[in-house]
């Protein structure tokens, strides 16, 4: 019996720790439509009759929505934090950035939790100020870390694309040398172009990494990441051209 309880407990813990759980829960917990409808209805009732009961009703709905907003914010932050934790940072520099983002998200969760305690004492006017302040705080604190965190996850994943492209260049260079085609003017030109594209992609990648290191915001890190990827894509165009050229030389030599 005790063992079963332990297994069930462990299963619940696993589910709670799963980012999928947070996403699904966040999606549910973060839909304010019904509660906002209820607020509109309470406000309409209060406009029609400013009774104590209607005042309390609106206040109650307001507090409910604020609590929901805080709860949703915590879930949202936990979900992002889980995803950042899952990002496979393969270098010490990336691991350091990852830890800093995780730490900042911890601070954000801590802030939301302290705000939860203040909701109980709010009046209608206070709830308006509280909501405006919370929104403003999110804009200047959560939004930057969230944007950096999400971009960082993609950035980390892009590292293996860079490596794959570099490996492909090395493989092609070696093969072309083996075939004695590396000295061909057109082939060597294309190889140089591919090398240049990969070098520029790496430079963009370093620029992006620097933005993450500084946790700089606002930033153009998305544009830089896209630029880096675009350069890699250009290098693949060079690879296709190389392939075509090599094929043509080989078939002409027969």
């Amino acid at each position, binding site marked *: 019996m005790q063992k079963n309880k332990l297994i069930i407990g462990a299963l619940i813990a696993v589910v709670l720790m799963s980012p*999928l759980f947070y996403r699904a829960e966040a*999606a549910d917990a*973060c*839909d*304010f*439509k019904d*509660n*906002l409808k209820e*607020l509109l209805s309470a406000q309409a009732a209060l406009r029609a009759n400013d009774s104590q009961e209607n005042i309390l009703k609106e206040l109650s709905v*307001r507090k409910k*929505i604020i609590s929901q*907003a805080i709860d*949703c*914010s915590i879930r949202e932050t936990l*979900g*992002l934090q*889980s*995803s950042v934790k*899952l*990002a*496979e940072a393969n270098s010490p520099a990336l691991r350091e950035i990852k830890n800093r983002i995780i730490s900042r998200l911890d601070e954000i969760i801590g802030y939301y939790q302290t705000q939860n305690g203040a909701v109980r004492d709010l009046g209608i006017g206070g709830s*308006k*100020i509280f*909501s*405006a302040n*919370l*929104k403003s705080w*999110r804009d200047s604190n959560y*939004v930057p870390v*969230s*944007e950096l965190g*999400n*971009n960082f*996850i*993609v950035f980390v*994943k*892009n590292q*293996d*694309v860079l490596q794959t*492209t570099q490996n*492909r260049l090395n493989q*092609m260079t070696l*093969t072309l040398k*083996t*075939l004695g*085609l590396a000295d061909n003017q057109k082939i060597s030109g294309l190889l140089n172009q591919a090398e240049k594209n990969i070098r520029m992609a790496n430079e963009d990648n370093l620029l992006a990494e620097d933005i993450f290191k500084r946790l700089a915001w*606002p930033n153009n890190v*998305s544009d830089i990441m*896209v630029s880096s*990827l675009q350069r*890699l*894509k250009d290098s*693949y165009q060079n*690879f*296709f051209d190389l*392939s075509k050229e*090599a*094929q043509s030389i*080989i*078939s002409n030599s027969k």
Partner: protein
Amino acid sequence: METTELLKKLKNIKPDTDYSRKSRMVILSNDLKESRLPVLSFSFRQIATGVLHSGWSMALTAVFLLLAIGSFSILKILTPATTAVVDITGLRAEAQAIDARIELTNIVYNPSADIENKTSTSSITTPNAEPQKATARRTDDEAQQNAADVAGSAKSAPEQPAFGIDSALDILSR
């Protein structure tokens, strides 16, 4: 006549016994050396030479084998079927994977857009869907899967709740 007698006397000349004995010993010892040394040198030399010869043979065999294999692979590379300067399918898959990453980077969660929009929640669905998947995707299937994931993420965006945290807080602050 004197000459004849002289020749007869010469016929009777014999070597000194001692000289004769020493000479015999020298000759015999030389014979022994000659008969023994070749036997000894034969065994050592034969072994050393045998090893050397077999070593060289093995090395030469290896070189011929390498040449044979090398020429085989070069021939294989040279055939139009492989044209393996590049594996076109692999190249295409990798290029598609990059396209998918570009799309993903472009659609990654942008809270600023959400603030401007004010109608949708600050969703965590789109960016988080991708990072949970395995990292390295180098094969065709993986690249196609990657592209499909991105498409899936993009499609999932409209399903987000219409009123999110920031929209709710905006309404509450009025």
